[in-house]
């Protein structure tokens, strides 16, 4: 891992798991990457993504990654 590379974790929920084949990905990525670009690289159709959180708080898809970040990604859906 070079100085510009960091480790992040992404946890997927519901049908999004099927796109990556597992509930959780640990990735080595560049610092300037956004969550959106990571999801696209992982094969997640971004238009299916609803709520995203970073370290337990809401974050937009444009969030950039920091060392040891933990993201959670939920599909877009509504409550009844």
């Amino acid at each position, binding site marked *: 891992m070079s100085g510009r590379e960091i480790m992040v974790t992404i946890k997927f*929920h*519901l049908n999004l798991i099927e796109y990556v084949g597992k509930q959780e990905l640990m990735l080595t990525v560049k610092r300037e990457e956004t969550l959106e670009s990571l999801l696209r690289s992982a094969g997640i159709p971004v238009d299916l*993504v*609803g709520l995203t959180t970073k370290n337990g708080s*809401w974050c937009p898809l444009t969030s950039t990654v920091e060392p040891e970040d933990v993201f959670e990604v939920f599909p877009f859906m509504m*409550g*009844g």
Partner: protein
Amino acid sequence: VVNLKIVRVDMRTKEVTSLVHENYRYLGGRALTSKMTLDEVDPGCEPLGRLNKLFIAPGLLAGTNASSASRLSVGGKSPLTNGIKEANSGGIIGQKLARAGVRAIVLEDKNDDGNLYVLKIDKEGTTLVEQNELKGLGTHDTTDALLKKYGKDTAILCVGPGGERGLRSAAIALNDPYGELKFAARGGLGAVMGAKGLKAIVVDDAGLNELEFHDREKFMEASKSLNSQLLNDPKTKDVYQKFGTSGIVKAVNAMGALPTNNFRHGRFDQVDGICGETLYENVVKRGGAGKTGIACMRGCVIKCSNVYPDVNGEKIVSTLQYENISLLGSNLGIGNLDDVARLNHEVNDIGLDTIEAGAALGVALDMGMGKFGSVEDCMALLNEIRRDTVIGRMIGNGAKITGEVLGSDRIPASKGQGFPGYDPRALKGNGVTYAMSPMGADHTAGNCFGARNEVNPIGTTEQGELSKKIQGQMSTLDSLGFCIFARNPIFSDPSLMVSLVNNLTGSDFDEKTIWDIGLETVSVEREFNLAAGISPAYDRLPEFCYNETLDSVNCTFDLTDEEMEKAVID
């Protein structure tokens, strides 16, 4: 279009009249119930008294084969908020009423002969039938008895003992194609129906098909496109048909908005026990009566309902949804879906709104009437309602009355109505809706949860505009009879909605005109509320939301008055 009959039932004289009413030609669902409430109901009336009326209207597109578009609205002055209210639901009665040519049923005055009545609509006409044997029956037994008497394909709309007793959180139950119950729940409109002496409405549309199309072929083309887009949306099969709305439990928890222990916390440490994944796993593993992917209206391709079974595969409840899980689960500290399902079934059978019941129970537990996490304590309190004790009447009258009787200074309610399953401090757009909407704390009036990637849910800007936009959109969908889950294709291609409306009714509306139906409806509702004395001073959340930091998001509800006022629709 000939489904323009307004059926009026005077519950005192038992006179039934049926007139075509051209003035309401292009209004259906919520737009119609709200306009008629403004036109005909004295805003100062007692909601359970003679002067209030109950309006029952299928959405404008009801009865057609457009997917998810046959919801039924009920409306009138709410005994819970003392303002205008509309609640809508799936079920089969919206379709059957439309096919019977009925645009609306209006229940007027109230019965004073001590008998209980059923309103029967079929090819022979509309009649009131005395059925005292239904007195005190729960919604399930009532529905079963009526299906047995009138035929298994009839549509039923009924109240339980809660409605008969005038409990202000009483709901109205409707059967789905499989005999399971759905509820037009919010605002206590079941109490209005019960107070009038009407136990049920039965509709048999055999031999009736009065729905006509201005241009059937073009309508079918638009309908086919809508249905196909919904079917091809990955959410339909992979999310809604598996998990239903329970699929959002973990997401709401992750954003810190899951009501926990009477809205004291925004995350629940037992969330894994009540989430959608667990629901689906239990249904699959237990088998038997358990099912997911059930349509609540004929022809709906989304199919988000379920039957939740016990460990032996016997049905506990249908359908277990997000709101029920959050208000009867985490809000009461209960982390087991079987327990939530049992509470849910009991509330359904008494015929109450599960959201209001969960909010009222939360307040009661918070004030020492039981322990959070104890399903036995919660069931005992529900049993007080069943036995019609004073404590039961307190809880059955909703969160606000429960809190006031018990001396609580933190009642999660706005305009008299209990909060639904999103803490407004963690999803501030919904807080705006709870405070500013004429409907009071009702997420269906403008749920900002689905807009979470557009606006920071705990940010202090853009919330007013967001709530206003969604309030208008939801009101239009409610008026057309659409389920909110059908919104994606409609929002991405509104010409579909235009084509459906114009080719059914013969109107010449453009997109803006149809969206404006929603805004005009909210404006009508606000006008009624102002006349009823619900001034802008009531456009607020309870004080604890402004003073008490929600631990999950470390903030209060801190929007400025200026931001809130952006959501006013007048």
